């Protein structure tokens, strides 16, 4: 399945969901003073957020519609 076939809205939702999950995991990792908090941040929080950002960027590149005409 091509990315362009998925649709902008679904990609934005997926991106938002991953960014939210990643940032909430980061919040937990910051408030939890424990050796595993570093692992949680690196492998879960940063990973999910990075994938979310990449999906958003991919949606801009592959799905963004043609520019609207500026006719009066």
């Amino acid at each position, binding site marked *: 399945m091509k990315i362009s076939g998925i649709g902008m809205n679904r990609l*934005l*939702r997926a*991106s938002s*969901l991953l960014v939210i999950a990643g*940032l909430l995991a*980061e919040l937990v990792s910051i*408030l939890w003073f424990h050796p595993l908090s*570093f692992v949680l941040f690196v492998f879960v929080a940063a990973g999910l957020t990075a994938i979310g*950002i990449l999906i*958003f960027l991919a949606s801009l590149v592959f799905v963004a519609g043609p520019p609207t005409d500026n006719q009066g």
Partner: protein
Amino acid sequence: MTKFSVSELFATGQTEILVVLIMVSVMMAVIFLARPAITTGVSGKILAFMGLFALPALCIAGGIAVHTQRSEQTQFCISCHSMEPFGRTLYIDNPMYIPAAHFQNHRVPADMACYTCHADYGLFGPLRDKIRGVGRIYFQYVSTPPNPIQIPGGFKNGQCLHCHAGARSFIENPVHSAIMDTLTSDQVSCVSCHDMIHPVAQLSQLKFWSPGQ
């Protein structure tokens, strides 16, 4: 495990800023989750760029800074069960023990005592330290920590010389000056003479210093 209060986490102010930034980013991402159609307009696109790229990227950069700083703290190092005895050796009431003397007299920053003496001061040293640190977390939670715990590759003189090289008391010491080349080239280890370090096996026989008493 060593316990910490929330107030300690927010001691620097950096963490507070990051928490606020994360909350703002989450709220913006929730808007795009609920109504992705708002990105059809130019202002919506700009908002999406901020909420789904710029702010989350900033949060990750901030998280790296906070976690890097936190992982250099003495309390973080000794929060692993197997490192607790090493933390206790910092309080031995005997100035002949090198780490205890350095820690108690603030010859190293007390809140970064472990990191100051055990950090890799090479170009990519901090990164290598973090990778090794993840390996130690694996030993702590998945495998079994080695017994006795030893520094991979041995203790490098550079970690002492990072501060002591060039110091008058160090270079004017006749013992040091006689073997200076072998010290700087790691042929003779500093700890081969200064061998009173972390006596974790003899902790029950030692007296400890209690700050404030």
